[in-house]
């Protein structure tokens, strides 16, 4: 389930409406996976998003920003905490 969902995510990022598709995929995974599996899945998605952000290709950076924008309101496996801005390790 996790690997196929990730494949879907990767395919979705290549076409129009990809950010919305990514958010929908994360929502589906949140409903269908166990808490631990979803946390691992989310971690992989976020790692992929931040890899795109660090890319030298501006299109990939734009894709990463669009993905972040779409994922802001998606459910998260990790507990949200308030930390002093700029202190979170990368």
């Amino acid at each position, binding site marked *: 389930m996790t690997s196929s969902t990730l494949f879907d995510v990767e395919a979705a990022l290549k076409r129009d409406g990809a950010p919305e598709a990514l958010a929908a995929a994360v929502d589906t995974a949140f409903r269908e996976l166990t808490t631990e599996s979803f946390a691992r899945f989310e971690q992989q998605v976020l790692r992929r998003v931040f890899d795109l952000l660090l890319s030298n290709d501006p299109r990939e*950076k734009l894709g990463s920003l669009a993905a972040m*924008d779409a994922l*802001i309101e998606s459910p998260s496996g990790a507990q*949200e905490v308030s930390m002093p*801005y*700029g202190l979170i390790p990368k």
Partner: protein
Amino acid sequence: MKAVKFANGLKNVITASHDDALLEAAAKALGHLAKASPMPTNDFVDFELNRGLEWLCAGPQYGHRRLAACLVLKELASCKPTLFFRIIGDFFERIWPVLRDARQSIRDAAADAMAAALQVLAERPSPHHLEFLFRTYDQVSCLPSLVSLIFTVRYHNAISSAQAHLSPILPQVKISFGGNCEGVHASLRVAAAMVAHCPDFMAPRFDYLCETVLSVAERPGRGGLAASLVRATVTRTLPVLAAFAPDAFARRYLRPTLSVLTRDAQPGEVATRRAQALLALGHVCRSMGDQLLPHMEDLVKLVCVCAFE
């Protein structure tokens, strides 16, 4: 934790990026994060507001910082108006040099930020805010004046026809012309924002504004990107004025407005200008209603020509 990671990622993009599209996307995501994040966001919103104010003071050579500041402040004014309101005095102090920037994208972003700030003021009516509105209106009036624009346009046209004889002074005049057009462009954008967000304040100044905009429209100048930009901005501003006070507009300014817009929509004009003019005509027509009946025949002819050519 996800929100904090996103906030850091966006901060890094805004700090390091020189690309307009990236800055715009990052600012949009930052605004969304500030509005919708499940964790308290005041910490990073305060940081971004202060950095935005600091970067508004950046010199013209740091255009990306000016642009980033305008985009971020606009998003935060829309998404976190209460926190933005705390810095609104500093914002109105520092935005003017950016509105006169040489780059159109920066001026547009600054005008959008100004519109968002005026919206914040409009949502918090208070007599104390008149100070900001008067200051803004004074600055709009102080930007390179209409008279100097018309003079320079005429001068520029005269020089174009006698270029060979006057070539030594041409560069100097072109710079002056460009500077004026940038100021007029910014003035028109801010004036349109004031009409949209401060109707009570702008009502007594409506006639002056209409006359000024139409004066610019009737003397568009020839050639040059800056003159085209002014024409396009006038075309976008006229429907805003028509919608603001339809009856008053119809009594005195409808005929010259239709004259300007139909001129720009004629088949001989540039395609983009025609498209803008036709779109503006449509918006003006929707605002005018019955007042449009005497002009109906000419307008229908124009639309037929444009639709079936």
